[in-house]
């Protein structure tokens, strides 16, 4: 194929791809919460056919926790913004895997799939008779991706892997914090998106190998091991110097000044509403701007911008070491300037002079960012229950064809007929039987769960549901 492409280009007219990179790849997605759905969001945005399978009695817990907060609306579990963001571009159905009919349907889908991804607790799939051997017996060249918090076997098999646990046992948390204070957690469940991004790459790596060798694969992405790869430089520093990383707050090893400075707050009336739909928790008016001076020339420029040419001429500050040693006094001078203007104004003035600076964008401010707007980053989408809303766009902006959001997140159980009918060969009668027996359905069913299903459940309260599945 590559040779065809090359000969096509020799006439000097380079053609453009007309189909997305993962077009034709079918993925069965058994993941929930954030890390796994983040992986399949990336794959779906790149054109893969992702079929998300939830439990009839066990919807993705992001649906249930979010629905609780929405109160008495119709189908609240289809209106959860958090769920609808990360599950767009996927098809979805609900299948009761705790029952033999449900497992049989899954195995039929496995036969027509290229890959399967899951983030159940260790042993849950095996308990249902759906371990790797069984799946590979159905489809020998299947790529199976698991995302344990720590390991699928060994002493850490049963260790719960919520987002902060991964960050904590993956070493990052010891690096983050205000100077002189203790470790500080990330504002997001940082382990989740990085595990998801790695899992997406791991799956494609295995698919590339399959294309070359015909082999299926059992892939294990350890979320903690992945996190440790994000602190490699500090590990090598320790090996070299037996030195543990120091918590520096927003300061840098050698750049100075380097910090986060207060800006003019918003007027109270224009404050940012905090909380969630129907649950306001207050209003915030604080604004901040970050500034990082990497070179002596940038220091000179900064002095001009803040109207302090005297500092630019002061030999004590001319070089990084001198500035580093006098950071406290420089920070006070800079803060005095930043306090008098908005975060955006400070950023714009400093950037115009070539000084690295950026406003600390909040999630809401980000939705109004002129740069992201110009890039067309946010995309509008129409959802059959939730209506029109905006989502963050694809991140792998391939030049051709432009990646699009071609479908909203599935409503619960939405594609059961087309998926099981078209792909797994169920006729109308068989589908009706499954529906009657509540093996499939379009609404979550409350039924005493089997022990295995109970074990797999990841019920989470709204703010808590930020962690990985495990």
């Amino acid at each position, binding site marked *: *194929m*590559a040779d065809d492409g090359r000969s096509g280009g020799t006439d000097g007219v380079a053609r*453009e*791809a007309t189909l997305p990179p993962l*077009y*034709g*790849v079918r993925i069965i997605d058994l993941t929930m919460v954030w890390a796994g759905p983040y992986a399949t969001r*990336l*794959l779906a945005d*790149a054109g893969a056919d992702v079929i998300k399978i939830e439990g009839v009695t066990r919807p993705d817990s*992001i649906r249930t926790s979010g629905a609780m907060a929405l109160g008495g609306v119709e189908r609240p579990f289809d209106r959860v*913004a958090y769920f609808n*963001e990360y599950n767009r571009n996927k098809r979805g159905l609900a299948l009761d895997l705790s029952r033999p009919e449900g497992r049989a349907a899954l195995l039929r889908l496995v036969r027509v799939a290229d890959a399967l991804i899951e983030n159940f607790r260790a042993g849950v799939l095996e308990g249902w008779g759906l371990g790797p051997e069984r799946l590979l017996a159905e489809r020998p*060249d299947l790529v199976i991706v698991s995302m344990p918090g720590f390991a699928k076997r060994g002493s850490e098999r049963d260790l*719960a892997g*919520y987002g902060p646990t991964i960050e904590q*046992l993956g070493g990052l948390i010891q690096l*983050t914090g205000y100077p002189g204070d*203790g*470790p*500080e957690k990330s*504002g*997001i469940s940082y382990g*989740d998106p*990085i595990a998801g991004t790695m899992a997406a790459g*791991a799956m*494609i790596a295995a*698919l*590339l190998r399959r294309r070359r060798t*015909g*082999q299926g694969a059992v892939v294990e992405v*350890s979320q903690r091991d992945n996190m*440790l*790869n*994000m602190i490699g*430089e500090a590990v090598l520093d*320790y090996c*070299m*110097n037996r030195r543990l990383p120091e*918590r520096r707050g927003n300061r840098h090893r050698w750049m100075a000044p380097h910090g986060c400075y207060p800006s003019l707050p918003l007027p109270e009336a224009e404050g940012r509403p905090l909380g*969630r*739909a129907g649950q306001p928790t207050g209003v915030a008016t604080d604004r*901040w701007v*970050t500034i990082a001076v990497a070179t002596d020339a*940038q220091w000179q420029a900064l002095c001009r911008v803040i109207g302090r040419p005297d500092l630019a001429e002061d030999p004590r500050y001319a070089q990084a070491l001198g500035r580093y040693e006098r950071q406290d006094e420089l920070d006070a001078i800079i803060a005095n300037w930043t306090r008098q203007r908005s975060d955006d104004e400070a950023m714009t003035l400093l950037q115009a002079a070539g000084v690295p*600076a*950026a406003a*600390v964008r*909040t*999630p809401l401010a980000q939705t109004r960012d002129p*740069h*992201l707007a110009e890039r067309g980053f946010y995309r509008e989408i129409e959802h059959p229950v939730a209506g029109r809303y905006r989502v*963050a766009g694809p*991140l*792998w*902006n*391939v030049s051709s064809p432009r990646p699009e959001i071609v479908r909203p997140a599935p409503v619960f159980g939405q594609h059961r007929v087309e998926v099981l009918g078209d792909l797994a060969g169920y006729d109308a009668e068989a589908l009706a039987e499954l529906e009657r027996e509540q093996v499939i359905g379009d609404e979550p069913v409350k039924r005493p769960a089997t022990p295995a299903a109970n074990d797999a459940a990841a*019920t989470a309260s709204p*703010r*808590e549901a930020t962690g990985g599945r495990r």
Partner: protein
Amino acid sequence: MTVDTAWNGDGSRLAAGPRPGAEGRPLAGLTILDLTQQVAGPYATRLLAAYGATVIKIERPGSGDPARAAGPFPGDVPHPERSARFLYLNTGKQSVTLNLKSRAGRTLLLELAERADALVENFPPRVLPSLGLDWPVLHAVNPALVVVSITDYGQTGPYRDFAGTNLTLFAAGGQMSLTGEPDREPLVNGGTQALLQAGLHGFSATLAAVYGAQTHGLGTWVDISIQEVQTAALEGAGPNALVNGMDATRAGNQPRATWGIYPCADGFVGCWCMDQNVPDLFRAIGRADLLDSPFRDQRWRGEHNEEVATLLLGFFVEHTQAELRELGARHRVAIGVMPAIDELLRWPGLLEKGFWQEVEHPEAGRLVHPGPPFRIDGGGFALAPAPLLGQHTEAVLCERLGLGAEEIADLREHGVI
């Protein structure tokens, strides 16, 4: 989206092979032309090399990748072959020095691009066009080539040419606004997380685009923005802002009493309990009596957060990290210690799977690196030392492009390599 039922995009169904062993890396056979430097790009190509791709890193003659000057260094003595940042991020790559500003250097690069599967770069957007090496040129010499560009703010838009560092980009991406204590300034994550997140996307996106190029016979240019990568990972707060028009702010180390970091007798301990874990938490702290009290009720706990936090703090400060770790394990709740790097290097769960990998480097000696973030059939990952500056220049140009000793000497004389 309608998708046909072909296993592979080209409609072929590949035969199932024998079950593979631990050896044999998944990306064997791929050639990556690596024009990256510093952190974000090199992290992408480090992963590609570790999983078996041949990565040819192009460096500026003389000084090479600026990460060689970044450190940290052994004994804090700068040395271009002993920078921890460089040594970590460039394992398993080949280093070729090439002056891309010279006509001959550009020609050699295009010849290498003709024979590569992907080119990965993280120059500011204006650099490659100024060298006459932008996407249309690369696409014309090799239509199947994938080009992946990782930049601060992407290839378009008003901030395109903004200056950025890890700190300012962590702010621009939105994650910083959620990190830190509510009554203090927002806080940047430790290390260079804004850059590494984008590098990780660079790895996965390169593979996706190469997969597509193999399917369609046509490469694409992938534009990855460090800002966007974080903006798309604001957890529930991102969609909440987009859909409900409401914001979030820093929640600090204790968003909730049962979900936070506490001081303990000899350091700090994390306590991460969802509602269903709370009974086990109470048992772990010897307060099973609370199971029949209002403390069991999630809503009540929400309204009496201080009371719950005081209860937990009182127990934690009386116990050591080791005691709390044991209690957490026994009661299966996520009460955990915060191991520093020295403890992680002897962490049983990591040792038993042979996670840490020692790499011997001719100039820097033996250093321990983090091992595989993922394993394929138990393996598929291997590390080799980072290259010395220009270590593979001759070998690559001779073997790949068929240059002779005389031509090499000539290029050297003219400062091209």
